[in-house]
């Protein structure tokens, strides 16, 4: 195929070269280092891009211009912010549990890093093709709440504690419906591996060939993902007008920046998972028998497809944030237990029936 130079080819070239130069053990170690550096680099880039994107989206929705001083049209604003956060003093409050207080942001960022591993960024380009990828992601993402609880508890601040408790209740509940909507796809695919899930969508994305039940699962997944990443309208853990800044009230400087970064990276990860499960991952968009059209689509590199879908979902979540008011804690739990959970359970039944009867294309 007339593909442009792709990520998988680059990685293959590097791999071959390393194998030719070093023995297998060293190759592995060097590859791991490269992967680690890449992930950290991706983190930094994601943080910068998503922050500027959020600020621009909010500005345009709010009929403002947004940041426009640093760089062309303010595109380097988030770099300036990063520098500011780096040179700020990282305070630790007097009454805080110092160890936990400093550990919490690290856990947040490490969890985000772990979640990166099984995501398929492009054709044949995946750090770790684990065969239980979906399960791994659901399991590891639950650890996120620990860092929030830790931050809230260790800060020795009442606002933080309230925010952390809210977030605990919220994440634990919303994990259920997020999991159930993910299971809908797992049932249809019959596999827990991200790679296979993407390959199962070669003849059409699940959102198209799964009829209405998958559409419902997709909507529920987006809602639950918004809630799990603590973003408005579910940002009760930080609820600015009630709890000043919720669980990170006491954090400043780089420690705050780590929480901030983790939030955005988590948004990216849930959107990447959403794109993989429902929108075909790196699969290009094909329409049945339009050969010419399909070939044009194939020509676009798979990494672009993946990023495009992911950023579309990220935009959706940002759009939510700048449109809706925040829910109250009891309404939040009502929404989950009275609406999302029953609907997704019923939906799961439909999907299972559909899978057994083979109704999808």
């Amino acid at each position: 195929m007339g593909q442009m130079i792709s990520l998988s080819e680059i990685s293959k070239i590097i791999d071959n070269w390393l194998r030719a130069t070093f023995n297998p053990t060293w190759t592995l170690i060097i590859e791991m280092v490269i992967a680690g550096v890449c992930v950290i680099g991706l983190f930094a880039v994601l943080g910068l891009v998503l922050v500027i994107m959020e600020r621009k989206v909010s500005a345009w929705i709010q009929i403002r211009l947004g940041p426009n001083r640093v760089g062309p049209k303010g595109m380097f604003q988030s770099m300036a912010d990063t520098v500011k956060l780096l040179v700020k003093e990282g305070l630790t409050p007097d009454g805080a549990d110092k160890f936990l207080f400093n550990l919490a942001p690290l856990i947040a960022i490490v969890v985000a890093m772990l979640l990166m591993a099984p995501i398929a960024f492009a054709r044949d380009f995946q750090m770790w093709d684990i065969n239980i990828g979906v399960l791994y992601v659901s399991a590891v993402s639950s650890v996120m709440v620990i860092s929030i609880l830790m931050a809230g508890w260790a800060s020795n601040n009442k606002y933080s504690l309230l925010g952390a408790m809210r977030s605990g209740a919220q994440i634990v509940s919303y994990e259920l419906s997020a999991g159930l909507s993910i299971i809908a796809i797992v049932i249809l695919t019959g596999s827990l591996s991200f790679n296979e899930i993407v390959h199962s969508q070669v003849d059409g994305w699940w959102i198209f060939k799964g009829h209405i039940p998958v559409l419902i699962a997709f909507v529920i997944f987006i809602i639950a993902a918004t809630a799990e990443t603590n973003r408005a309208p579910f940002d009760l853990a930080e609820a600015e007008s009630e709890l000043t800044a919720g669980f990170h009230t006491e954090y400043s400087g780089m420690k705050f920046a780590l929480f901030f970064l983790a939030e955005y990276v988590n948004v990216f990860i849930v959107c990447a998972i959403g794109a993989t499960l429902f929108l075909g991952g790196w699969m290009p968009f094909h329409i049945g028998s339009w050969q010419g059209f399909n070939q044009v689509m194939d020509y676009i590199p798979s990494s672009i497809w993946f990023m495009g879908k992911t950023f579309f979902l990220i935009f959706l979540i940002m759009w939510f944030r700048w449109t809706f008011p925040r829910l109250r804690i009891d309404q939040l739990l009502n929404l989950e237990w009275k609406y999302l959970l029953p609907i997704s359970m019923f939906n799961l039944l439909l999907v299972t029936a559909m899978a057994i009867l083979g109704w999808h294309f």
Partner: protein
Amino acid sequence: MSKGLPLWGRFGGGFMFLINYIKTVFSTVKSMLVGMRRTGYYFTHHKEIITEEYPDNRETMHLPERFKGEVVMPHDEKNEHRCTGCTACELACPNGTIKVVTKFDITPEGKKKKAIDKLVYHLELCTMCNLCIVACPSDAIKMAQTFEHSVFDRSQLTKVLNNPGSKIMDGVE
């Protein structure tokens, strides 16, 4: 539900609940989409943006002529003002912002005449209430449209409104 109801009644109750449930879900989703359509409209229509890019627009910025920025005393090209030193403005000011320091000039006829030495104006005390301007009987002071008043030293905010060497205009009593 009451006991006497036949089975279909109970079923009907559950059915009504289900209908209401579905209705709630749909009306919620609809209201969300309506809101998102509005914000989406603004996201895509950049001509609605109303940000004024101050201070880049200093040249084109237009302040109405009545804007109360600071009290000034206009002088004509002969360095003459209209202030007679009557202290009406000092009395009218609620904050003690204005201090009129008078002196006595000797007129050509050899008579003594009251005139201002200095009209001291404390910008940091002024609340731009316009009372002094209204009180002045000879229209000697007016409001200027400046507003960028910040300085590094507070003493710079104490101003003398009459120019050095200025005289009172002929014919102003």
